[in-house]
């Protein structure tokens, strides 16, 4: 039954069990997936507001905006993050083929590799910060710099949150969680990393065009 039909029915007319005897969730997916999608929407709102603030600060500020010249490291970091997503996606594909999912299996190893590559990305972002600070682009000296650190920082915090869940999933896999749960963990982590890759594309575009 479509959502539209559900909210337009006349409940006072109906007595009995419209859907048969089974309880039916609104969306036929695991609860964790619903929660993740909700969280992704909330994070989208957060990043959108940050981006809007970015442009409004340019428009409404006192004309003191001096664009940052982005270090070339960012391109390498982007490549690393793309690799993260690709490895995670590969891990999902492997997990669907495997009966049991262990850390030492192909899916498990790829899952571990995805998380480690994320750490490389974070280290790369830190290097970019160091380059900027070395070049005199400090946090206080210009709002463009402040926004650069703020936006990249909030993005890293989201990755760190993902890594926390990733760590929990690793421990569960090690202690032999059932394959369905592990498959779901891998899939949800992958979705989240894809989302953060898209966010990064957006942020990188915004940062480098202004």
């Amino acid at each position: 039954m479509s959502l539209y039909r559900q909210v337009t029915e006349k409940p006072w007319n109906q007595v009995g069990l419209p859907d048969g005897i089974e309880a039916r969730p609104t969306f036929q997916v695991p609860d964790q997936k619903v929660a993740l999608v909700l969280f992704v929407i909330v994070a989208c709102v957060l990043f959108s507001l940050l981006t809007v603030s970015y442009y409004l600060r340019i428009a409404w500020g006192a004309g003191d905006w001096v664009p940052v010249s982005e270090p070339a490291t960012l391109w390498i970091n982007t490549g690393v993050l793309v690799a993260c997503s690709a490895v995670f996606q590969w891990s999902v594909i492997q997990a669907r083929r495997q009966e049991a999912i262990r850390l030492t299996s192909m899916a498990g190893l790829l899952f571990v590799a995805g998380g480690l590559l994320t750490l490389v990305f974070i280290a790369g972002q830190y290097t970019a910060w160091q380059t900027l600070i070395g070049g005199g682009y400090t946090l206080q000296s210009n709002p463009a710099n402040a926004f650069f650190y703020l936006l990249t920082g909030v993005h890293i915090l989201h990755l760190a949150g993902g890594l926390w869940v990733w760590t929990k999933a690793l421990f569960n896999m090690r202690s032999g969680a059932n394959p369905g749960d592990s498959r779901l963990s891998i899939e949800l982590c992958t979705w989240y990393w894809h989302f953060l890759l898209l966010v990064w594309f957006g942020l990188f575009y915004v940062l480098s065009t202004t």
Partner: protein
Amino acid sequence: MAYVPLADQDDPHALHDPHSFITKYVWSQDHKVIAIQYGGTAIFVGLIALGLSILMRLQLGFPDSISWIDPAFYYQAVTMHGMIMVVYLLTALFLGGFGNYLIPLMCGTRDMVFPFLNMLSFWFYLLSVIILLASFFVTGGPAGAGWTLYAPQSITAGTPGSGGGMLLMLISLAVFIVAFTMGGLNYVTTILQARTRGMTLMRMPLSIWGIFTATVLGLFAFPALLVSAIMLGFDLVLGTSFFMPAMMQLGEQSTQDGGSPILFQHLFWFFGHPEVYIVALPAFGLVSDVIATHARKNIFGYRMMVWAIIAIGGLSFLVWAHHMYVSGMNPYFGFFFATTTLIIAVPTALKVYNWVLTLWQGNIRLNTPMLFAIGFIFTFVHGGLTGLFLGNVIIDVPLADTYFVVAHFHMVMGVSPVLVLYAALYHWYPKMTGRMYNETMGKVHFWCTFLGTYAIYLPMHYLGFLGVPRRYYEMGNTDFVPATAQALNANITIAAIFVATAQVLFFINIFMSLRKEKDAGGNPWGATTLEWQTPDTPPKHGNWGPELPTVYRWAYDYSVPGAKQDFIPQNEPGEEYEKTFHTRGHS
């Protein structure tokens, strides 16, 4: 381990039934315990905010009668009163308290879908409260720039609490938002995914619709507060200039310059206006159920009520700049926001009509929850109508920053939600405790609160017309304000002290009734919704005993013609309908 088919396994909730005091009442993952923890904490900070308001009123009604209320303390009291009441009391009590208690019970589930996250949500909330209260004890005291925390005022030296107090306020807000997000994801997922069989979306009680929509609003609106809090914190601690314009301080040019204070206002109100509805929508929902139950009538226009809740929720994101008419905005911009503000009155008025029409020819029982609910209709209509005045730019400009505004928003989002809170607390008290409260004491409490709040806020409208400015510590040389205004102010203060004192009745009532009053039974009101049909009262861990309830009908089958009783519970199959999908003849 031998393989056991899923159907033959023991109920997982029975296995995890907590036994020790710590897991049962402190680190509890049971939604009912978490709800009471949330509610207790919220009411506790609410009492602090109530105390602060009395101190403010003493200064306004009887200037300089208490020597230690200096201007700095006055502004800090104003700020903390506002922030605590809006965020830490109302948001937390409606969503963390009633949301937690009612969602699983009304939807027929054993608990939230993520109980651990739910527990974490409460402890983060408690942490945010502790951080906020800690700001009373730092050098310079708590933040004192008004609850709107407008930059650059709020973080400029010279404003009370602009250093440590402000920093703690921002950290506390950030922690609160994390807590809310954890709770909110849980409430929404539970309502969407875990409803028991037969509980279609349109069979949900309006309480759930209100809580659900408000939670979604919160999830979308709180990020704006988080963004403004983070950026303001950067400006305060790290010396960036997101919001800080060039300023002269003590004859010296500040190091920060170029920032946009208006940007802060937009971000703040993009959160701030939906926040009004985060508080109002659960109140709308709860009051609908209280009115239908005690009027023994189905809610008038259930579908319209649901759609109105959703429409108000959507529109609430398009009206924020009506808080900023005097910030020097483009007139066309103001025109747009005035228009959206008036449009939002349409679904809101629809709800008011439907409450009144539910009462029409109902078999009304004027007990305490019902009195509070009817009182809410009065105060809400009153506050809503003054909102129409203030929503128009041309009327708002002269009335901005006067007591008219104070009267308006206290009526519409202070008194009204609090009356609903009392209605709901009295209404669900028998379910939460298994005891009946003292009816006489409850009624006295209602009349003192209802008439008392009118004695406070009605005169404030006239103070506003006289041009008495809000946020002033004392009047000074304001010749245009007649001397009689002071007499009015003194009366308001006396009324405020009276109302605050009357709240003691509530606490005496709920604590005394725990011991003395008679057993309430499982369903003292003859209500239809699922929470009144639990096998135990108060409901035990897991709520429903061995089997989950099945829902056969909507939540408002009161006084159905031909039925044996004047209510039919949602889980009552009904003889003629037995397990088939049946359409009644009339529509």
